[in-house]
């Protein structure tokens, strides 16, 4: 019974931790929510949080920036991550698969500042050649994709490996083509795990700070094209928190709380998709 008690208490501490963090963010965001008010966060003309009356706290560009950068990154990283995991589990020689696994282990471990620096020194000039300034939504999406693809790869790889051999042999025994086998035996059993893997990756991209700040351009305006600069919620905090005072500082915390709310809703959405795909048992 001891393990049951530890299991439940560990579970409770984790849930408690999340509530503590959310409470901490809301506590610090309280002055801003009271004084600036929820509406102005969305109605203000721009984001110029200078002290005094002419401060503007329009959070919409940052929200849109975060959503766009994350969505684009997921669009790039999810297919690549899943297909690569598919390849290394079923199609390539085991030594190659092991090589890829350790390679992904390294990519997952690179600090975001290293990937951000590479983005700034390699990606941005390359994009700038197409259209100035180079630091843009596209650069942010690519860098986030590189940060996030290991998470999807690992989640999918685990899911593919846990498919019972009997399913695979059944489909192979029918002499079906590879795609047939994938569609018949592989995908149905792992769809819920893939959905959760994708959600984990997207929440990670939403929370990423250092790498995005380097390459996104951080202009607080809604980008009209891939090449326009974009500011994410996390970049907003990272850039201004060290020097923010009073109302501005608490407005940044409100942004942080908003980001957690976005993450929360995304996680619940992902869970519903995963449950819908998996029929009765949730993963």
């Amino acid at each position, binding site marked *: 019974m001891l*393990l049951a008690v530890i299991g439940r208490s560990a579970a409770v501490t984790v849930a408690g931790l999340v509530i503590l963090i959310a409470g901490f963010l809301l506590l610090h965001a309280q002055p801003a929510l009271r004084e600036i008010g929820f509406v102005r966060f969305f109605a203000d003309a721009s984001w110029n949080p200078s002290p005094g009356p002419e401060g503007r706290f329009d959070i919409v560009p940052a929200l849109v920036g975060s959503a766009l950068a994350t969505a684009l990154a997921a669009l790039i990283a999810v297919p690549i991550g899943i297909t690569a995991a598919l390849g290394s589990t079923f199609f390539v020689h085991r030594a190659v698969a092991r090589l890829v696994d350790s390679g992904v282990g390294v990519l*997952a471990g690179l600090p975001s500042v290293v990937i951000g*620096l590479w983005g700034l020194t390699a990606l941005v000039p390359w994009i700038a050649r197409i259209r100035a300034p180079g630091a843009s939504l596209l650069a942010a999406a690519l860098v986030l994709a590189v940060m996030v693809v290991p998470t999807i790869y690992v989640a999918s790889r685990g899911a593919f490996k846990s498919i019972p051999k009997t399913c695979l042999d059944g489909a192979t025994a029918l002499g079906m083509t590879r*795609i047939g086998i994938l569609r018949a035996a592989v995908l149905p059993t792992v769809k819920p795990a893939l959905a959760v893997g994708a959600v984990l990756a997207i929440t990670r991209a939403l929370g990423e700070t250092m790498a995005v700040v380097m390459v996104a351009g951080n202009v607080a305006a809604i980008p009209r094209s891939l090449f326009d600069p974009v500011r994410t919620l996390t970049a907003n905090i990272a850039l201004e928190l060290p020097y923010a005072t009073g109302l501005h500082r608490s407005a940044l915390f409100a942004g942080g709380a908003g980001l957690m709310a976005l993450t929360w809703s995304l996680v619940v959405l992902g869970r519903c998709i995963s449950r819908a795909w998996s029929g009765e048992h949730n993963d």
Partner: protein
Amino acid sequence: MTEARIHRSTTSKSDVAVQTASWLALVALLVPLGLIVGDLLMRGATSLSPQFLVDSPSKAGREGGIGPVLLSTLLVMGVCLLVVVPLGLAAAIGLNEYLRRGGFAVRTVRIALDVLAGTPSIALGMFGYAFFCIALGMGVSILAGGLTLACMVMPLYVRLSEQALRTVPDDVRAAADALALRRYTAILRIVLPVAAPGLFAATGLALARALAETAALLFTSGYVSRTPGSLLDPGRVLAVHIFDLSMNVPGGDGPAYATALVLVALLLSVSGVPRLVRGFTRRWSHPV
């Protein structure tokens, strides 16, 4: 878990398509890695030397080595793993073995873990500072840094451990239940040995994610590059050192890239360990 291989069936057009797609995806995955590590090698190799690993930094890190930083990193990672592995494994076992049926507790915990995974690292850093450093009075220290890192890495570790536990087929658990084995005997002697390779891989990946963290540790484990005397002393980790050198110190790029190379070497050894152990565990526990 045996590696399932799909035998080379007749290569129809669709098969070729799937084959090339997966090869393309693998290449697309490894190209950025090659570019980044290549870039690091090109810019950082010159400052690398055995002395670099031992000396302490001088002239704000532009000269000397990263001895104390390496030590602080190992200490912070140690504290983090000491918290994450037992607690995470217990939670994974709790979720997977005990609360098997999707009750309310299981669903809330799973959602809480996912949200914790999504918490922006800078917000967790601020929380860690306010909670561990100030509220619990640890001050900016290795201990506070390790605990904050544990909060960040816990969700990933629990999810990967659960996946490892799930590789144990259910009919083995049914057999253990039918034989009325005590629950902890079934887990310790049957489930864990079979899941061991997956669990070690989970630890390796969690450690990799911990090594990569910058924002959360900047406020909690500190900026000081001196050798920490105790767990309550501040100490700067590799990622923070790389950040400071490349962002705040003119001429800090060379040592920054060299430090990044040391981190890459550390990562390779970390992701190599599970493979060693998998070879070992395969000998006496047999995939069903």
